[in-house]
């Protein structure tokens, strides 16, 4: 049996379940309480779980992320919501210098079982300061896990293993996915360690994640009409990357297009390409292509924002060029 659910509802259910099942879990962030969450993920939570466990915070990412680290060190299981990845830069010191390092710096004596959720990505005309995709920066840091749920199942299922993980987990939710709907099975098997093939193919593999997954699937659908079967690999976990799955996709299809909303320079797609060189070079039948964001601040104007982002047409064009 399955039932239809939106990404937003799936995420809300996941948090509701965690708050219900584990008294150590609490939610903290800007507007998560009285307002019901910037994206309405926590609507009704304040009334149901009370102000002790649903805590509105001042506009101080540095402060409340640090408080979350302290709470997790003290034995709680905080879910800290940061409104967008752009604002998370204010909390970088807490995440990179404290959360990611405390296990190492304490010689294994301290764990930081903290979950930080944040919105990422563009496509909703929120302009440059609310639209960037900086998850690749977090994926650079040893000591944290970085997740990118892109499906209803992952939105519903990734939070529980993230909370169970003894180390900090950062979850990136792409703002363009919140209203997407899909079927959720009654039971799901969701891990936070592997990539998953979302569509089988053999002529070209799309390696993608998050908000770019639906675009890659749409491109694959278009290409199928021309007899080109594209495999779509959803990375799901940006750190640690599932190199085995990436290499397997290369070995199967021999051509790869990496699709993500990072900028190319030093981005996550660059890391994926480097791993392909290291682990699957002799399986390549064409140079790896990237469809990423243009190297500009994401524009506000609709047509310019669309032009700056990966789109199914761009992916299709990259494949056509690759096939010659």
């Amino acid at each position: 049996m399955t039932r239809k659910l939106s990404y937003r509802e799936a995420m809300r259910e996941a948090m509701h379940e965690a708050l219900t099942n584990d008294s150590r879990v609490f939610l903290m962030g800007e507007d998560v309480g009285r307002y019901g969450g910037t994206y309405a993920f926590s609507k009704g939570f304040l009334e149901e779980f009370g102000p002790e466990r649903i805590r509105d915070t001042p506009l101080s990412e540095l402060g409340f992320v640090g408080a979350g680290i302290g709470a997790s060190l003290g034995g709680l299981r905080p879910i800290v919501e940061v409104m967008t990845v752009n604002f998370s830069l204010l909390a970088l010191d807490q995440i990179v210098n404290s959360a990611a390092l405390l296990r190492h710096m304490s010689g294994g004596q301290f764990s930081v079982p903290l979950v930080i959720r944040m919105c990422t990505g563009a496509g909703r005309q929120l302009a440059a300061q609310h639209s960037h995709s900086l998850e690749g920066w977090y994926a650079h840091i040893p000591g944290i896990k970085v997740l990118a749920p892109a499906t209803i199942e992952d939105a519903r299922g990734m939070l529980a293993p993230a909370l169970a993980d003894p180390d900090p987990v950062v979850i990136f939710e792409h703002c363009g996915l919140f209203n997407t709907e899909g079927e959720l099975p009654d039971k799901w098997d969701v891990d936070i360690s592997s990539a998953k093939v979302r569509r089988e193919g053999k002529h070209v593999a799309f390696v993608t994640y998050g908000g770019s997954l639906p675009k890659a699937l749409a491109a694959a659908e278009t290409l199928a009409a021309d007899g080109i079967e594209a495999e779509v690999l959803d990375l799901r976990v940006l750190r640690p990357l599932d190199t085995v799955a990436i290499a397997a996709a290369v070995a199967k299809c021999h051509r790869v297009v990496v699709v993500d909303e990072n900028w190319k320079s030093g981005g996550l797609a660059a890391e994926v390409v480097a791993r392909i060189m290291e682990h699957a070079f002799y399986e390549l039948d064409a140079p790896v292509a990237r469809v990423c964001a243009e190297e500009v601040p994401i524009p506000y104007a609709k047509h310019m924002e669309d032009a700056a982002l990966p789109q199914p047409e761009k992916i299709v064009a990259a494949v056509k060029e690759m096939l010659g």
Partner: protein
Amino acid sequence: MIEFKLPSLGADMDDGTLLEWKVGVGDTVTKGQVIAVVDTAKAAVDVECWTPGTVHELVAEVGQKMPVGTVMAILSESGEKVGACGTAAVSPAAPTARRMISPAARKHAEKRGIDLDAVVGSGPNGAVTLDDVENAAAQPAPVTAPKPAATPDKSAEMRKAIAAAMARSKREIPHYYVAEEISLAKALAWLQAENLRRPMAERLLPAAVLLKAVAVALAHYPELNGFFRDGSFAPAAKINLGVAISLRQGGLIAPALLDAGARNVTQIMQGLMDLVKRTRAGSLKSSEMSEATITVTNLGDQGSQLVFGVIYPPQVALVGFGRVAERPWGDAEGGLKALPVVTATLAADHRVSDGHRGALFLRELAELLQHPEELEGLEK
């Protein structure tokens, strides 16, 4: 500027694959210095430079297969100022004409034994793709003999090279043959006595004595020692004995024992051992591959009684020694004895010499072998 071109390392060599550069741009090179290792159908060969100079540019890329005569490197002569002549305001490296072959296509072609040179690329900019290799593999056999589907076989390559050289020899060279039975009683007795007083590592084999005798005799028969090229014969200044060495995996190579005329028996023995070792290890020098002026084939203990050889072009003669065996031998007093005897043969190019001279050469060889103690002392 000097163009250093891929030398022919033997009549059977049409092309070679660069395995390694031993020098870099800016290095000073001397004549005879090994500057590259090139894989031929027969062996990996150290290629020597034939002129002193400074390496200006390495044109050939490692892995590149090129026909003989391809410019491999540009050398500047000693004292030549690069750029002085105006040509050389070091232009940016010319785009290499390397074919685009995808890594997967290359790997697959190797596995299937497909010759990538024959595969037409259909990818962007003519790149050879996996599909192109698949299609080539599915094609019926091309006009030339199809390769077996297994990995390219080194011994098959060598067989092809030998076939080409031997077919050319029999096509172009009018061979004549003469033979002579030679008593080795004195030579072997001398060898035995000589070896008794030598440490194990310095002992001599009969082959060394035979080779020395050939070198000495050849000095009087220049028409047997040299090259027939472009319709005329040029005698060689030195006697470089090509020694046929069979390889354990099959096939043979006849590298040169350089300047054998100037070596005594001991030195020939040392040279021979070194040559056999390096031939089987695949580390011959280019001069050893290309500069033999005559070939000697020595069948040894396991061979037949006599051998009439096929001349290795552009050489003009081949001396063959059969198995040394006890045979009845009449002496000057009318007596009959069993003596160790070898049958020496000469296959020679009738365009250059006649049978009479060939017979005289074998007679002289026989005579020399009756005075082995003098051979050791003879310098030339």
